[in-house]
């Protein structure tokens, strides 16, 4: 049982890592034309996440692969149940990834504007859809005795899931704005800060609503505590962002820590409220998938534990190093002119 608990926690940690890291690059993408008002501004935004977004995205690949390895039944039921939703998520991830890499390789304003819209729409979509997905996981879905989904796509768009989706949308935008306040200068930083403050309040309200609703659906003392921590941290992030400007002394780093903690607590709260289920059935609790009936054998879980324990520190080390290499703020003045015609050597 220790292994099952341990792996439930590891899967939680992988999703937390994903949402904390890709959360801010979703936010940056979502604010592309709002905080980045002109071409140089948009390029500042893209360059703040340019070197790191791909590494951030691997966290979801890992979350998926480790769910497959540690809880195959969970992986199979969840991925087939969320079929069309995952299709939309995949399309967004594909278009968004290509957009980051290809936007700067074109030589016309039309080209760049198209990819900007692609980044913007997919970032909004993903920030919303991941919340909808986890809303459904927490709430449970119509699983039959064979753990097969018997509901429809529209069932996934229930009010609780949608509120949770709006909560993650606003939360990731706030987190992204706070990240931008930390990574940019002057007007762009000012716009990012004011966005963080206004959207942050909306996010806190939506989060309080989602966390409260979650508690009514299937809350525990722990999940409620984590939910409260999430809301408080988010508000702390807003306050710290506000103070940073007033005192003329940057608290951007602490504000980022606060919104990161908020995301981590919210996600951990989802897992706390699920436990010991991994995918509850709304038809009959007996049909639910839990950490026991969804799990792999102790042999596989032990093996994966060793691999995770040995390699995680190395990965965290070099990922942290990559953030260190690109730690400096980026200003609009540093951005070279965008090319308007194809150079010929």
């Amino acid at each position, binding site marked *: 049982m220790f292994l099952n608990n341990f792996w439930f926690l590891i899967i939680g940690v992988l999703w937390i890592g994903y949402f904390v890291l890709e959360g801010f690059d979703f936010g940056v993408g979502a604010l592309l034309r709002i905080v980045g008002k002109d071409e140089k501004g948009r390029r500042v935004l893209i360059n703040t996440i340019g070197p790191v977004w791909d590494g951030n995205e*691997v966290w979801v690949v890992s979350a*998926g692969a480790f769910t*497959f390895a540690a809880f195959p039944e969970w992986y199979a039921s969840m*991925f*087939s149940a969320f079929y069309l939703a995952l299709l939309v998520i995949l399309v967004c991830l*594909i278009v968004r990834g290509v957009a980051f890499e290809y936007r700067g390789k074109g030589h016309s304003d039309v080209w760049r504007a198209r990819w900007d819209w692609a980044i913007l729409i997919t970032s909004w979509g993903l920030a919303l859809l991941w919340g909808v997905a986890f809303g459904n996981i927490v709430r449970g879905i119509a699983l039959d005795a064979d753990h097969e989904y018997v509901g429809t796509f529209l069932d996934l768009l229930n009010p609780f899931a949608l509120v949770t989706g709006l909560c993650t949308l606003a939360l990731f935008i706030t987190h992204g704005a706070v990240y931008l306040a930390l990574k940019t200068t002057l007007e762009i930083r000012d716009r990012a800060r004011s966005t963080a403050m206004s959207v942050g309040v909306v996010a806190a309200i939506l989060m309080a609503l989602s966390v409260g609703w979650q508690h009514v659906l299937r809350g525990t003392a722990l999940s409620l505590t984590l939910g409260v921590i999430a809301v408080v941290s988010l508000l702390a992030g807003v306050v710290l962002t506000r103070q940073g400007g007033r005192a003329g002394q940057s608290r951007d780093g602490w504000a980022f820590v606060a919104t990161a903690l908020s995301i981590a607590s919210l996600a951990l709260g989802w897992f706390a409220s699920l436990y010991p289920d991994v995918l509850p059935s709304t038809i009959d609790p007996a049909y639910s998938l839990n950490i026991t009936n969804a799990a792999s054998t102790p042999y596989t879980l032990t093996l994966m534990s060793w691999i995770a324990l040995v390699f995680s520190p190395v990965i965290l080390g070099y*990922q942290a190093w990559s953030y260190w290499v690109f*730690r400096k703020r980026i200003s609009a003045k540093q951005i070279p002119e965008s090319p308007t015609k*194809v150079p010929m050597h």
Partner: protein
Amino acid sequence: MDPLGIARWQFGITTVYHFLFVPITIGMALFIAITETAWVRTRNPVYLRAAKFWGKIFLINFAMGVVTGLVQEFQFGMNWSSYSRFVGDVFGAPLAMESLLAFFLESTFIGIWIFGWDKLKPALHAACIWLVAIGTTMSAFFIMAANSFMQHPVGITVNEDRSRAEMNDIWAVLTQPLNMWAYSHVIAGAILSGAAMFAGISSYFLMKKRDVPLFRKSVRLGLYGLLVGSTLTIVTGDLLAKVMTDVQPMKMAAAEALYETSAPASFSIFTIGSLDGSTEVFSIRVPGVLSFMATESFTGEVEGINNVQAAYEEEFGPGDYRPNIPVTYWMFRLMMGAGGAMLLVSIVGLWLTRKGRLPKSKTVWLLAMFSIAGPIVGHSAGWIFTEMGRQPWTVVGLYRTEESVSPSVSGGSVLTSLIVYTVLYGILAIIEVGLVIKYVKIGPPSEAEALAQIRRGPPRRGGTGGEGDAQGTDEHEDRPLTFAY
């Protein structure tokens, strides 16, 4: 609507498409690492310019490999949930290892490599692309281990109560002979792909007589790569065939359209079979060669399709255990033909460019440009052969394809996703190829440009000027970025 057939088409389309980019990525990463190392060691700017140029082409491909890989991981759960339930205990492990050991490595260091030209010392920067190259080759190892398990399940017991395969020996799963040779074969093929990009694109510049000194070096590197890659592909392919004959006799027999067990068995260069694939109508054959390919002896016995079919019926009950014979037969030939053609290109190319020579004829260069297609055709044919040749099984002897599909997903949903992926992939292919052509035409940066792009900042106050210096106010805050998206 039949979800099974549509899901199979989807797997075929998305996998072949994904694998257009993967071997190019693996191979080019290696050759760019070699080129950049040459720059670090010799400080000859021509290598820096080359590394910069090839890096651009590489990144256009890399992005596509990454994003299409997402679909690969998700679709096991989406389209093949029953399969996932059956194999998850064993199949998930290499996938998880792949993400942890390989994907993090390549995606983190590619980011540092792209944006870090002016931030890292040259040797450290070159180390980043080596780490990317190592990451891509490790990734292939784990995914081939997972695939080899489907071809020949080892290291497991089947738990009848839970109706699933349970792993008891990861070492066997990772290192079974089939995987060792299949993996080597894929890596050899990837070297071939990267080399063909180098040789083919360099040929364009040599035909146009642009940047001749740079592309002479690149074309030679590419041609040597083709020679090494095609030789290794042929050797590993031969060794793989012997293991395959042993563990998947049906696939090998289908590859040859060999209906009756024969000793010695002849190699067919061309065969026309009856439409139902059960008998042979006409063929051209080389005596004894198939026996040699399969058993290392010109007189060895090779099992025929009809004999294996009879044996399988006895073991697994009545049913048709034959894959699609015309497809496996012709894909096998297409794959081998592509490999052989690449060997020929490399030998002729190295001869024509020996001792500083460069052919004047445009036709030669034009033909060389088409060599890019060789590995692409070879890889696609090889995968279609090996996956179609596994049918009717997803896990040979244990689990059938028809049982594998998701029971809860309707044909309409699968069709929707098939259409979405196909249209999206089609659009992206046009954009991708357009960008590659555009960046080839733009050509490598000039020496001044290339050197400007790697200029690191002047020493900062209290720092040593390297990448590890202390934080603090930077006097050159507004210095333009030498590279930005």
